[in-house]
């Protein structure tokens, strides 16, 4: 089911931040990233494969994350991703940007920051 357009726009903006943040404490594969986002946002934000993968590939193309294949005996091979140094810097930047933005919006729209 497609999410409502407003959420879609917001989600689009924060998507990179969300993905990068899941890789902060270690390498994960795609399904794991999506799962964490869903869990930590208590189901409010979720990515399906079609939304997640273009983001992953773009981040990798830009050098923010690096991916590699892992093959375990008896299992299909999975692709794992980790943050690069540039990725970490970007995560930090994005966090600062979004925090500042949230504060600004709060003030401008009279929101209470929960």
């Amino acid at each position: 089911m497609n999410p409502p357009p407003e959420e879609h726009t917001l989600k689009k903006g924060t998507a990179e931040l969300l993905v990068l943040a899941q890789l902060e404490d270690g390498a994960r594969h795609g399904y794991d990233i999506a799962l964490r986002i869903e869990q930590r946002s208590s189901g409010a934000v979720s990515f399906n494969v079609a939304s997640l993968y273009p983001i992953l590939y773009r981040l990798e193309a830009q050098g923010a994350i690096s991916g590699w294949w892992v093959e375990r005996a008896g299992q299909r091979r999975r692709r794992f991703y980790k943050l690069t140094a540039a990725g970490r810097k970007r995560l930090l930047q994005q966090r600062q940007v979004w925090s500042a933005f949230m504060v600004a919006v709060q003030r401008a729209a009279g929101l209470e920051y929960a």
Partner: protein
Amino acid sequence: MRDFTAYVRRHLQRSSLPAQGARARSYDDIVEELASELEARYASRLQRGESDEDAWRAAIAEIPSWLHLARDLAAAMPAGGAHERRTRFARLTRAVSLDHWSRDIRMSWRSLRKDRGFAAAAVVTLAIGLGGHAAMLAAVNATLLHPLNVPEPDRIYLMANQYPRVDSSRLSGVSAAPDFDDRRVHITTIEDQAMYNFTAGTIESGSVPARIRGIAGTPSLLRLLRARVAYGRLFVESEGTIGSDQAIVLTDGLWRELYGADPNVIGRVIRLSGRDVTIVGILQPGFMFGGTDVRFYIPLAFTDRQRSDEARHTNGWLSIGRLKPGATIEQARAELAALDQLNIDRLPQLKPLLLNAGYYTSINPLQDFVVRDVRGPLTLLWVAAFVVLAVGVANVASLAVARSRARLSEFGTRLALGARRLDILRQFIVEGLLVSAAGMSAGLLLALWLRSLPATILIGRDTPPIDALVVAASAAAAVLAGLVIASVSAFSLVTLAPGALMQQGAHTGTRSRASRATRRTLVIAQMACAFVLLVGAGLLWISLRNLLALDTGLRSEGVVTANMSLPATRYATADDARGFATRSLETIRRLPGVTAAAITSAVPLSGNYQSGIIMAEGYTPEPGEPVISGIRVAVTPGYFEAVGTSLVAGRYFDDRDNDSASTSLIIDEALARRFWPNGDAVGHRMFRPENPRQITSVDSNTRWLTVVGVVRFAKLRGPAAIEVTTGAFYLPYAVSAPREFGYVVRSHADNSAVIGELRTALASIDREAPLFDIRTLDELTSLSLMSRTSTMRIASMFATVALFLSLVGLYGTLAYLVSQRRREFGVRVAVGGTPRHILGLVLREGLVLALAGVAVGGGATFALRRALAAQLFGIGPSDPRVLLIITISLTAIAMVASLVPARGATRVDVMKTLKAD
């Protein structure tokens, strides 16, 4: 299991993604990643208890629109090469591809470590094969490929006078002194000519005079060889004339040994064989010509007489020259042919003789001449080493086939889970290469140890180096071996479908038949190789025994020989030499235990000999018959008794023949039969032409000799030497009294005692006349056969290793076949078969394999018979006795090797095997 890969492939069109550069994410990778993601979600839903249908639907719902996804993916990934090269993404993907190989290496390493038995067996087998091969390759490289250690050795040619109808046994290598001048003038395609011969001298270093070998050559020699001096200079032309030739050039090795690398020895005068010579130069280290025992060079100066027509065809020197750049050998041959014609016409008396003899001048690369004796044995041994390597690789391939069968289900699973066959094949290749790389490293270490083995066959060289060529060739062989092993392992993989691989029963049916046939073929090939090598080694052994048992015409037990060189300065005249000879022989004959002693101009089997033309009075040669040339030896009375050559007619030399005017002559039966086939040679007269004129015209100056005795034919050059079969003639020593001669002493006493006393006795007569090369006749015989002995030993070693490896292969294959037929044996026993019956089945299998191997090996031996024949003596390459003995032995040993798996087969537990299905 749902096939997500196929699903993704179906929906994601390859064309919807932009063309990717080589380093970008590939379509297959994307497919695989998406498929694995979908599968993960599907699997976790199943785990949560959802139905298969629901889980599947939920999973594929993760991608609502493939069109949008393709578009988004395309937008997310940059296309094209230049952009990629600049981005870090490009670097990442490059890491990904290397990642493939490093992962393969890690996986292969882990897999081999788990299967240590296989890895160890494979590495050891390959090490043995590659090591032996590398050692022989080093020998071949050092000897056959680089026999001359001088610049541009392939342009140096040897010219020699040939008389094929007089002595056709093999090409002669020598020329006469006048040829030097002739060839320099007439052969324009050759620049820089030289003549030389090997010589020896005594250098007094400290108190003990040491005998060392050197080369006497025209001053042009060192220039031709492009030798360089570290100090001083090479010879100048003027030093090539009598009277100005007291110069010497030392090799680096000799200089270091005698003078401790002191550069101030230039100009020093030293005594060489009683002559004063001045050191004019020291050669650079690394220069080597004529063998490592050549340690000095002195100028060769011809006397006028030697350069004159009278000395034509008195051949005693090696004549070499460099072909001019751009000139061809055919041009040189043509010029030599023209010169020959000129020379044939020059002396009319000689012309018919030369034509009868088929005289011509040969020109061949010096390198070929130098290696002609060792080329055959070394090449054969190298082929043998290669065969051993092949047998080893076959063993490892067999093992790999067995190993790969055990991992079939693992591969099946991997294939089903999305691995590509290419990935698995790549892993096989990496495994094969890892094993062969380890084998090669160990093998090269082994080769370092083994390379000294063929050294005795090599000509004047130290242990051959394991240089870049050898390492490269070994690496190539190792890579080839690794690929063979990999492809044999992967064979079953390529032909099977993944589903079939995973089934338990995958080891029956057509595939297993193919692998059984492979293993059987490998074993038969191995046994055939072992058979050929065993036959070869056996034939060589018999040849050697034949040679040792040969009646050489000499009785060598208890005979000691030694060489003497009287210094020219103190023994200037022939009388001086005669005096010394008499005195020394008197002393020696008085030594305890000595039964006979004599002096000879050439000790038998020592490699020295001279030949000369001899003619009989009243003998008219047939038209076209060439002159007769025999080995010429000067001996004192007592010689024949000392060496044990028996008398056929007449008498030995005695005191009557002990003066310089003696005209006595003793010939051997070969010459006697030649000139007087029907009658008695004793009493007849013969003569030796002293110059070409005398060959055809007998005159008052002819020095007549009378035959006083005929002796048995003796192989003076050694049992294996290609004998100048026209025979030998013996003159009394007293007539020519050469200063260089040898002693032969027969004694009851112990050899070492005799040697000691001989030295003391001679030292007491003249301290400064050194005795050298003291050896028993038995030792000389062994030395003359040393090359053959080494060849046989090495061949036997290879044959044994090949046999061992083949038996291992046979054992392994039979054990494998037994395990394959477990069910069949179970059934047989269940329906009443006896253990002996089962035993018989397996033994029969082993017998069939062995006999098949023998048959193939026999065929190969027959095909190779001509190559082998050249190395044999007294036995043919297809000798039936040898073939029979090897056949029986090989079959018997194979039967013994088959016993263990056969007995294992009889212990099959019927219930267990039948239940296993």
